Each structure stands twice: as C-alpha cells, then as structure tokens.
C-alpha cells in the first residue's frame, strides 16, 4: 500500500492541489458543490428524512389498525397514507439512499477522486429532491394520491383519479430520471475509473453489485418512466393506451409497472447484500469465502430478476405456460440468493467474528432474510399465491424482504462507514440497544401479519371486523411498530450524537481491507492525494507487490494535476493506466436545470402556459450556461498537457468519460423506444382489429428522416477523425471540425422537422384509437432523441468555437456520432412499430 507519506510533491504543489479541489464556501456551499461526497451525503440525508416521514405514516396506520372497527383515520385518509407510505419508502427512501451510498463510496472504494460526471451527478440529486417535494406538495394542496404504490389503472386513470395522480406521476418521473442518471454514473466509474491494478477479479463486491444494479436500473426504470408518460398522456390529452373501449388495455400498465417493480426489489436487496459482503469479512477478520461464486450469484440474481415481473400478476388470468416460465425463474433466483447466504456463513465460520454493532445488524439481516426467503418461495408458487394474494401474508412477506434485505444491511453499513463519513465512532452501547429494539420490534410487528393474513385479513383495508378474530394479532403488530420506531429513533440519536461526542476514529478503525479506509476520515475533498496502486483483492490486507507501470501512474497523479481536477482513467479488464479524466468543479447550473424541470412539472400541473414557457427558458438557459462553463474551464491551464507527461487529458473513444456517457444515453433511448414498441405489440395482439383505421404509411417522410440521421452520423464521425491527436491542429483540421459540426447540426435539424412532420401529415387522431396514440408517442420519442443528438452536436460546435484545445471538438464530435447512432436505432424501431408491425396479422 502506498500512501501520502513518501516525499514527492513540494509543499507548494500540495497547496495548489488542495486549491484545485477546494470546496465552495459560504452561501455557495448550499447550491454549488458537485463533489461525490457532498452529493452522496445529501442523497443519504434526504432519503432518511423521507424514511422517517414514511415511518410516521406507517405508525398512523398501525394506530388505526390496533383494534377492530376503529375510526382514528377515515377510509380515504387510510388509502392516502398507505399510498404515500409505499411510494415514499420505495421511490424516495430505498433507491435514492442506495444511490447516495454508491455515490459516496464507489470512488473511495475504487481509488478515484470523484464520480465521472460530477455535475450531472448533482443534477440527478436535485431532480430527486424536487421530485420528492412535488410529491409531498400534494399534502399542501390537499390532493393526496390514493391509488396505492403501484397505481393500477383504471383506478389511477382519467375516470377515477383527480389531480393527485398527476402529482404522483410527475414527482415520480423526476425521481426516476435521477435514478437512470445515477445508473450511468455508476457504470462508468466502475468500469473505467478504478485505481491502477484493480483488475476485475480484485474489484470490491459492492462495485460488482452496483454495476449489475445500474444495468438493472436502465433496463427496468426506463419502462416505468415510459409507463408513467403513457398514463399521463391518457389522463391529460385523452390518448387510449389503457382504455379498453379504444384498443387499449389496463393490463399494459401492470406489465410496465412490474417490469420495473420486481427488479426494484432486487435493486434494493442486492446492494443490501453487498453491504453484508463487506461488513461480515471485516468484522470476522477473514476474506469473503467464494468470491467468484458470489459475483456469479449477483449477476444471476440481477439478470433473472428482470424476468420475474409476471409473478405479480398470477391472479390476472394469464395462460399457464406463461406463468410457469416465470415460476421457473423465481425458483432459480432463490438458489442464487442461497449461494450468497452460504458464502456469508462460511466467512463467519472461518473467521473470528466480533459482535460489533455492524455485525449485529448483519446477523439480524441474515436471520430475517432467510425467513423472508422462505415465505417468498411460498408466495412464488402460483397456487399458494392465488390464496394469499392481497392478504396481510403478502404485506408481511414484502416487509420481511424489504426491511430484512435492505434496511438492516443499510443500518449495518451506516454503523460500519460512519467513522469514515464523519471521523467519529458511534457509541457501541447505544448502537447495541438500538439494534435489539429494532430487531425485536420488527419481528413483533410483522410476524403476526403472516397469521392475520392466513386468517383472512385483506390488505389495504382501513379496518376489520371484530368477528375475524385478528384483533390480538393486530394489537401485537402495533405495539411492535412502536418498539421498532423507538429503535430507529435511537439509531438516529446514536449516529448524530457521535458527530459531537464520538471518539475520533482515525482512517481505519476496523482494520478493514478496501481502499476507502486508506483515505482520511472524513476523506479530503480529493479523496487521495496519491492514487493507491492495487495488487490484490484486499489491498489493505495483502502484502503489496511492485509493478513499475502502475506505480508510474500513481506517481504522476501524486497531488497532481494542480490546475484542473483529474483522476486516472484505466482499462476495463485489468485497470491498466490509460489516460486522465477531467473532473468538474463546483457550479450552480445543474441546480438551475433541475429547477427548470420541476418548474415545467409545476406548469403542467397548474395548466399554466406562462409557467411552462418560463420553465423552457430556464432549462435551455441552464444547459447552455453549463456547457459554456465546461468548455471555459477545460480550456484553462494545465489541461492541455498530458499528466506526468504521459497520460493524455481526455482522449478519443472509450478512453475518456464522455464517450461512455454518450453510449449510455444512446442505450437509454433505445430501451425507451423498444418499450413503446412492445407496448404497441402487446395492445395489437390483444385487439381484434389493429389498427382501426389506416396505419401511418408515410414511407418517404420516414426514409427522409432516416437519411438525415445517417448524414448526421457520417458528418460527425468524419469530423472526429480530422487532425492529429493533440491539442494543436492545423487550420484545415479546425475547419473540418467546424464544417462537420455545422453539417451534423443541419442534418439533425432536418431530421427533426421531417420526424415531427409525420404527425400532421399522417392525419391520425390520437384520441381515436390506441394505435394512433402509439404513433404519437413514437414520433415524440424520436423527436426527443433527435433533440438530444442536436444538443450534443451543438455542444461540439460551441467547443469548436470557444477554445483552442483542438482535441476537445474532435472528441465531442465522436461522442455525437455515438449518440446519433443510437438515434438512428430509435428511428428504425419506431418505424418498425408504426408501419411493419401492423402488417403482421393472423
């Protein structure tokens, strides 16, 4: 392990390095920080605030249910409370908390200095916060969503739900947008920003997990975002996606929701399990047993969870073969989870476990999770599910999985990393008491629910009949809930109290193995003055071996570079030195951009054209200012020189973060349009006639759009290959970049016009039939994709016009070409869905 002690940079260089990484001060501290630790902390704190709000709602419900036939709460209030409780816990607490933990820990664990797109990271946080605020504004305006956390149509459709549902949908859309952005960040940091030498086989389990989770988020959250949009369109402009009368189908919502909803459970459980895979080895002083098995189990769980959505629809009358496909997958997942459980037990067995607070929570997790898994296997068998469906058995089951599988590990993780986050040790005595309160309270709350469910108590009822005989069980649940809550409040007191009174911890109080424990506690703004070199899976436990190639990179980045924030970029498989990735500094624009989006949502909710118009100005202005600031800062000082004379500051292709970002955006777009296409296919096979009238049938316009897109790709690709790979290119190359950017922008604009023209030219009526609605949706998706492509191309143009670093426009043009290629795929899928699919009739 090599750290800062060796002599290297002078005091003056160190000071300049610290200056480059300085955190904003004063008022600017509130809206401007972009560094992963402040963003991560904000995520986690906000998520916990929401957790306590959601918990309060749960307590209110438990008070109402404590005795039969009470009316502390009206039925309507009860509906609102369980809806907001479920929504808050799933969308505003669990997933965002884990995103925050990942934002905080991943760079530290991997030996990087920040997340790849620090400003975008911040933007995502603001989207999430504002989404949450929009959702909770429903209490202020007295229109609280009440359709349950999965908002089934038609209950959530235009006939039955008022504006409350729009609030729910907009709040959620912003939170989903944030999750998708966080996923792109996680993929890039894990694949390309690991410390030199951290080959894939040496990567911490948490990093493997977040990589898989990020892939799941992209594949699962995008369909939900699409689903929310479809519902919003049905509600506000009378499209027909979920309306049976006009060729729609309410089951489509269930599919789209559960394609998200089931993986969501694993998006929560897998990081929970990963926390355990770090806590158990450290607190047993033994390496995780069966590392490759655990990695394989994570991949299997992540992938298979994508295929399980239908098991939430066992009782909707799907054909038996369809169901059995999915039962098979459910069972396979249990095996994969079993593998992880065995690995943890074997680690405990071979090590010397210490009963620290994190360890206690881990053991609580193991116990609870295994119990929840058993009931899960029961629920997963279709016949049993038909019986227990919509009873308290299910409520008990999912709280076992969610609290056992996610909350306990998160608490274990908080106690484990608290010294790293704050530099102080939380009190072990208070921590132990809060564990026992939480553990006992939890089981007392939820175990009796299995029984009340089996005895016939349905879920989502605001009260029950004394004759049902479940009064005592419910009273126990309510008492348990208060004990549980006391445990959680005590946890909060313990942790917050440690901020002032806790013992100082030093960098590595637990004698842990991963890189975050090399950094100071709390870590300095740049995390690592000297980037660590990794030569084993447990860098702090292994004896370091020497590798001159890796050490050269570490030395080159020793308190360097000093005029610009940068971190090493390394190869995907072996993490060999590659280039230097520039990291952005504090700025205000991401906040403004997210605020603009929230303002747009407000404008739509208030149905105010003025607000909407203003929001568009804010959004466009914020993004333009953001981009100009990027270019200005990159133009400055040292960023033209390779770091240490060797590592290029930005390089074309996968050697710098932008390429990954463009590829990620392209994938998101393709997933989105594929979801729309599949939704249409689903409606088509369920409809007796499809389409009802004419199909779109505008081959020339469509082909023209495609051609324009091909031109945009070719122009930007050609431009990206002009001139040498260095910072001063001859004037001809500069001219070529400019010409390419202009041509590509022009081609994109033409594509946009042609794509949009399809709608009026087609003469369809989106309120007439779901096919027509689908065409509108596809055209809009294509238009949005083209807009993104145009945005990136215009950035390239701005880059060419604003600075002298000639490699930058080149790279940006290449990124634009990547994104345009994604747009072309979007076009192809959209065209297939509007024109080819209707031809397939039986």
């Amino acid at each position: 392990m090599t750290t800062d002690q060796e002599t290297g940079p002078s005091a003056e260089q160190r000071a300049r390095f610290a200056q480059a990484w300085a955190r904003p001060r004063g008022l600017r501290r509130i809206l401007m920080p972009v560094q992963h630790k402040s963003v991560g902390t904000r995520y986690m704190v906000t998520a916990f605030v929401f957790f306590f709000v959601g918990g309060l709602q749960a307590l209110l419900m438990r008070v109402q249910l404590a005795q039969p036939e009470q009316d502390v709460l009206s039925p309507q209030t009860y509906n609102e409370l369980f809806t907001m409780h479920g929504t808050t816990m799933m969308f505003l607490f669990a997933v965002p908390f884990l995103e925050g933990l990942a934002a905080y820990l991943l760079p530290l664990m991997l030996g990087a200095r920040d997340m790849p797109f620090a400003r975008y990271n911040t933007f995502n946080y603001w989207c999430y916060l504002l989404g949450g605020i929009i959702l909770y504004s429903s209490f202020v305006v007295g229109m609280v969503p009440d359709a349950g956390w999965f908002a089934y149509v038609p209950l959530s459709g235009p006939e039955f739900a008022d504006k409350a549902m729009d609030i729910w949908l907009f709040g959620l859309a912003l939170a989903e947008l944030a999750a998708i952005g966080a996923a792109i960040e996680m993929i890039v940091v894990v694949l390309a920003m690991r410390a030199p030498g951290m080959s894939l086989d040496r990567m911490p389990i948490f990093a493997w997990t977040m990589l898989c989770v990020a892939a799941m988020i992209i594949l699962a959250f995008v369909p939900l975002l699409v689903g929310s949009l479809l519902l919003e369109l049905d509600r506000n402009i009378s499209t027909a996606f979920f309306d049976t009368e006009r060729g729609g189908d309410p089951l489509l919502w269930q599919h789209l929701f559960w394609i998200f909803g089931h993986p969501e459970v694993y998006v929560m459980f897998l990081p929970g399990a990963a926390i355990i895979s770090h806590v158990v080895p450290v607190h047993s002083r033994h390496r995780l047993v069966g590392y490759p098995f655990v990695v394989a189990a994570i991949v299997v769980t992540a992938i298979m969870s994508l295929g399980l959505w239908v098991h939430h629809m066992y009782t909707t009358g799907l054909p038996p073969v369809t169901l059995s496909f999915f039962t098979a997958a459910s069972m396979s997942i249990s095996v994969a989870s079993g593998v992880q459980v065995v690995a943890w037990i074997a680690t405990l067995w071979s090590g010397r476990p210490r009963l620290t607070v994190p360890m206690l929570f881990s053991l609580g997790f193991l116990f609870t999770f295994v119990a929840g898994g058993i009931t899960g296997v029961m629920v997963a068998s279709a016949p049993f599910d038909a019986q227990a469906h919509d009873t308290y058995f299910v409520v008990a089951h999912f709280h076992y999985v969610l609290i056992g599988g996610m909350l306990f590990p998160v608490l274990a993780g908080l106690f484990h990393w608290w010294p790293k986050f704050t530099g102080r040790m939380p009190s072990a005595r208070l921590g132990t008491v809060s564990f026992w309160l939480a553990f006992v309270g939890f089981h007392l709350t939820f175990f009796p629910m299995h029984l009340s469910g089996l005895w016939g108590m349905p879920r989502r009822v605001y009260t029950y009949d004394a004759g049902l005989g479940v009064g005592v069980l419910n009273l126990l649940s309510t008492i348990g809930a208060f004990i549980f809550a006391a445990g959680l409040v005590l946890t909060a007191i313990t942790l917050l109290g440690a901020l002032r009174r806790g013992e100082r911890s030093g960098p590595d109080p637990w004698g842990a193995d991963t890189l975050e424990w090399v950094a100071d506690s709390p870590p300095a703004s740049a995390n690592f003055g000297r980037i660590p070199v990794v030569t084993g899976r447990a860098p702090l436990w292994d004896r370091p071996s020497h590798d001159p190639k890796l050490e050269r990179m570490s030395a080159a980045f020793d308190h360097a570079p000093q005029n610009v924030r940068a971190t090493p970029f390394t190869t995907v498989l072996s993490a060999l030195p590659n280039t230097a990735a520039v990291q952005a500094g504090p700025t205000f624009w991401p906040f403004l951009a997210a605020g603009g989006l929230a303002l747009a949502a407000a404008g739509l909710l208030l149905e105010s054209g003025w607000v909407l118009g203003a929001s568009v100005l804010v959004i466009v202005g914020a993004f333009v200012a953001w981009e100009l600031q990027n270019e200005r800062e990159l133009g400055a000082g040292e960023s033209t020189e390779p770091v240490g004379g060797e590592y290029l500051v930005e390089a074309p292709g996968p050697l710098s973060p932008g390429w990954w970002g463009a590829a990620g955006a392209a994938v998101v777009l393709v997933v989105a349009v594929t979801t729309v296409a599949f939704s249409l296919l689903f409606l088509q096979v369920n409809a007796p006639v499809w389409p009802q009238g004419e199909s779109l049938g505008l081959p020339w316009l469509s082909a023209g759009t495609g051609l324009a897109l091909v031109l945009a790709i070719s122009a930007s690709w050609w431009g990206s290959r002009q001139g040498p790979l260095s910072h001063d290119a001859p004037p001809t190359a500069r001219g070529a970049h400019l010409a390419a950017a202009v041509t590509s922008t022009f081609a994109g604009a033409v594509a946009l016009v042609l794509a949009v023209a399809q709608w009026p030219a087609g003469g369809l009526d989106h309120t007439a039939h779901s096919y027509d609605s689908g065409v509108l949706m596809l055209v809009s998706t294509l238009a949005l994709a083209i807009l993104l492509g145009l945005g990136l191309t215009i950035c390239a143009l701005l880059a060419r016009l604003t600075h002298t670093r000639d490699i930058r426009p080149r790279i940006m043009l290449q990124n634009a070409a990547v994104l345009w290629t994604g747009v072309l795929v979007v076009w192809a899928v959209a065209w297939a869905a509007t024109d080819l699919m209707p031809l397939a009739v039986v």
Partner: protein
Amino acid sequence: MAAPEATRPRSTRLAVAAVLVPPVAWVCALGLSYVVQDFACTAYASAGRNPPTALIGTAVVTLDVVLLVLTLAAGVVAWRTSRRATAGGGSPLFGFLGRLGLFLSLGFAAGIVMIAVNPLVLEVCA
C-alpha cells in the same frame, strides 16, 4: 502483479464473451419464449381463430435449444480459459473470468432448461 491485458486479444475476447453470452442467452430465452408463445396465442384468440399450437410449441422449444447450446458452448470456452490460466501459472484475472463464465453458463443453462420444458409438459395456448 497486474494481469497482462490481452497478451492475445483473441483469447481475451473469447474469455469476455464467455461471461457475457450466458446472461444474454437466458434473457433471450425467457423473452422470446414468452413473446412467441403468449403473443401468438393471444393474437389468434383475439382474431377468434384456433392457434397452431404444435407449431408454436416447436418454435419455442427449438429457440430455447439453440440458446442452450450457445450457453453451454460459452461454458466450455470459459472452462478452457480457466484451465489455461491456472496451468500457465498465469493471470489471476483470466482464472477469475474463466470461473465466472463457467458458473454463469451452468446457472443460466439450468434456467433455460426450466424454461424450455414448459411447452413440453404443459398445454400450449391453454
């Protein structure tokens, strides 16, 4: 020691492919089996006609068998990668990739088998 990246690019590519193929194959098996079976049956039902169940069943099974073979082939490649890495005293990275690929291939192959038997033991389009 850092593992040598791509001493031979071809074997690197094979090792990586052996890790990626099984999950992709499983997703295709589930997705296509579901879409072919469910969508075809539903389409016929909506049109008020009898579905060609034998054809649909055969299509699903054939598809799954092809994907199964791919998955198992990936397993063989992975196994050889891992053997070569350990025999050569060589790169721990490739040893790991080989083992990972092997486990994934076995796990997802089992998953594909469970998907493929469904149309054989249950009535298609019931």
